[in-house]
């Protein structure tokens, strides 16, 4: 990849994670002029968030399962035909019949880029799980803790508690423990029996994916050896502290059990990034059971708008191997649309990626089933916890308003829930669940907030220098 100053390309790719890299490599191989834009300085995406160049990192994410992704990253970084536009946030996507334009924001202001095809491979983010006390410094997404470790070499306040429903927290806790961080406890919301039932439902898949499950088993063993308790059926009731996190409260209201801690990682699943697709008017669907909006696509990963493509966790959270397969399929689809390869060629070359994607989807479905956050989120819905961090709106304030209207955009106007800087990324999923429940409607029939420019916060001074598109 090379740094580049051009503004017009055949293909613009948003996101340099496994999906974006895979697509760029397919496209570069057939001579397409493509650029990859990312808010991060370096490519890798969330799973391979790289430390600063100046850090000589040793043993950096060296677990076996990361090897194929690291290999792809190395090839990507060495492919000179791909332009790398790092440290730039894409804040707007304007589809057009003659091509599409993207507005980006970086240290030196805004810039417009254009291309015949745009691929959105923006990934996902830690589900914002509103436990009481979750706005305290030291309470963060489990993925945030992990990226602080792998990209910055930082262990957050010790000892660390993990709480949630998603098994990824086992791997994260073990990574932190192996790196020398002190973990106080890993607390699963759901009982071992419930998790076992999910595994039995997906028994064939569980057997076929022995190595992935083995990794969770190894993490459990490493944690045991380090004396870290892994507990099940232990819902988080509250995070305590005055100016920072000092404890995590579990157990029933009449028998609270507090685990003292210096920070807590919440791991209830991941939501697809959906700001750009929704702002540009692409069709999306509610992503069950974890929530959030997944962008719809055809078999070549093209969205409902011609020339705008999607791949990876923007299309639903299903893990890095699937993200990579989707990136390759999208890359081939775009190459065919550009006339750089024939449709027949694309079909033939995409076949193995379709096959491995299909197999991996079964494992993703099992994980989804195990990690289902519904119960944990229902508790929040019935509480008075702050669900909108930016505007500090509580679940009880939202419940009150839902008595008069269940339209989420109206509730937003009345309560200010979702009006803040995060554009609703933190709270919308919760509001939609509450609104669906109040109306007795299925989540898949719900409509979300109206997508708006800019998809990422941008300074008013920058906008004034360059008027809104």
């Amino acid at each position: 990849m090379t740094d580049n100053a051009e503004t017009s390309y055949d293909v613009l790719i948003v996101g340099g994670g496994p999906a974006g890299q895979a697509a760029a490599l397919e496209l570069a191989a057939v001579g397409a002029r493509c650029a990859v834009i990312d808010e991060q300085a370096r490519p890798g995406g969330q799973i391979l968030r790289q430390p600063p160049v100046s850090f000589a990192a040793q043993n950096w994410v060296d677990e076996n399962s990361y090897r194929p992704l690291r290999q792809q990253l190395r090839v990507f970084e060495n492919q000179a035909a791909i332009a790398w536009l790092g440290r730039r946030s894409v804040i707007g996507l304007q589809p057009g019949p003659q091509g599409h334009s993207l507005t980006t924001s970086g240290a030196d202001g805004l810039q417009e880029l254009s291309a015949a095809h745009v691929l959105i491979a923006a990934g996902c983010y830690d589900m914002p799980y509103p436990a009481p006390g979750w706005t305290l410094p030291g309470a963060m997404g489990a993925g945030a803790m992990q990226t602080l470790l792998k990209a910055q070499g930082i262990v957050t306040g010790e000892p660390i508690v993990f709480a949630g429903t998603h098994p990824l927290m086992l791997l994260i806790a073990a990574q932190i423990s192996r790196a020398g961080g002190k973990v106080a406890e890993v607390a699963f919301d759901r009982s071992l029996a419930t998790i076992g039932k999910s595994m039995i439902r997906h028994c064939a898949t569980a057997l076929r994916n022995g190595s992935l499950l083995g990794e969770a088993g190894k993490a459990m063993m490493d944690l045991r050896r380090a004396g870290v308790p892994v507990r099940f059926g232990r819902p988080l009731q509250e995070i305590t502290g005055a100016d920072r996190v000092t404890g995590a409260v579990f157990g029933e209201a009449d028998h609270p059990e507090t685990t003292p801690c210096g920070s807590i990682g919440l791991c209830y699943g991941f939501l697809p990034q959906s700001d750009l697709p929704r702002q540009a008017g692409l069709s999306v669907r509610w992503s069950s059971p974890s929530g959030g909006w997944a962008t719809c696509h055809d078999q070549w990963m093209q969205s409902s708008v011609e020339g705008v493509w999607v791949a990876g966790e923007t299309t639903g959270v299903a893990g890095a191997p699937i993200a990579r397969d989707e990136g390759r399929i999208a890359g081939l689809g775009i190459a065919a649309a550009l006339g750089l390869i024939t449709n027949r060629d694309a079909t033939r070359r995409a076949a193995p990626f379709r096959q491995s994607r299909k197999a991996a989807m079964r494992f993703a479905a099992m994980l989804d089933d195990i990690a289902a956050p519904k119960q944990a989120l229902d508790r929040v819905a019935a509480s008075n916890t702050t669900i909108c961090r930016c505007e500090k709106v509580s679940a009880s304030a939202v419940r009150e308003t839902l008595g008069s209207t269940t339209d989420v955009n109206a509730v937003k106007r009345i309560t200010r829930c979702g009006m803040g800087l995060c554009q609703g990324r933190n709270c919308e999923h919760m509001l939609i669940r509450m609104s669906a429940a109040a109306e007795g409607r299925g989540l898949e029939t719900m409509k979300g907030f109206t997508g708006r420019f800019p998809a990422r916060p941008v300074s008013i001074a920058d906008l004034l220098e360059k008027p809104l598109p």
Partner: protein
Amino acid sequence: MSKRIGFVEPPAPIHIELDGEVVEAYEGESVAALLVLHRDGMSRRDRDGDARGLWCNMGTCSECFVRLLEHGRSRRVRACLLEATDGMRIATGSHTQDD
């Protein structure tokens, strides 16, 4: 307490100014990481005076806004996407109410 761990071999330290206090940092290290080390992850106080901290460390939640003071102007930026450079001056909202 948060801490740095040894899996990275950082280069010679640089210095940045965090709320007027000079702290040691490494070139390219994120300002969010420095907030974790020096402020327990705190980025500001909200309008009720409550301490608030970074949540996502990936540019999505907008909880980590700090002010970057340069060229006589103050820019609000996400600390988790801001890389430390020598002499950088940062103002958090952790001492004042800054919403």
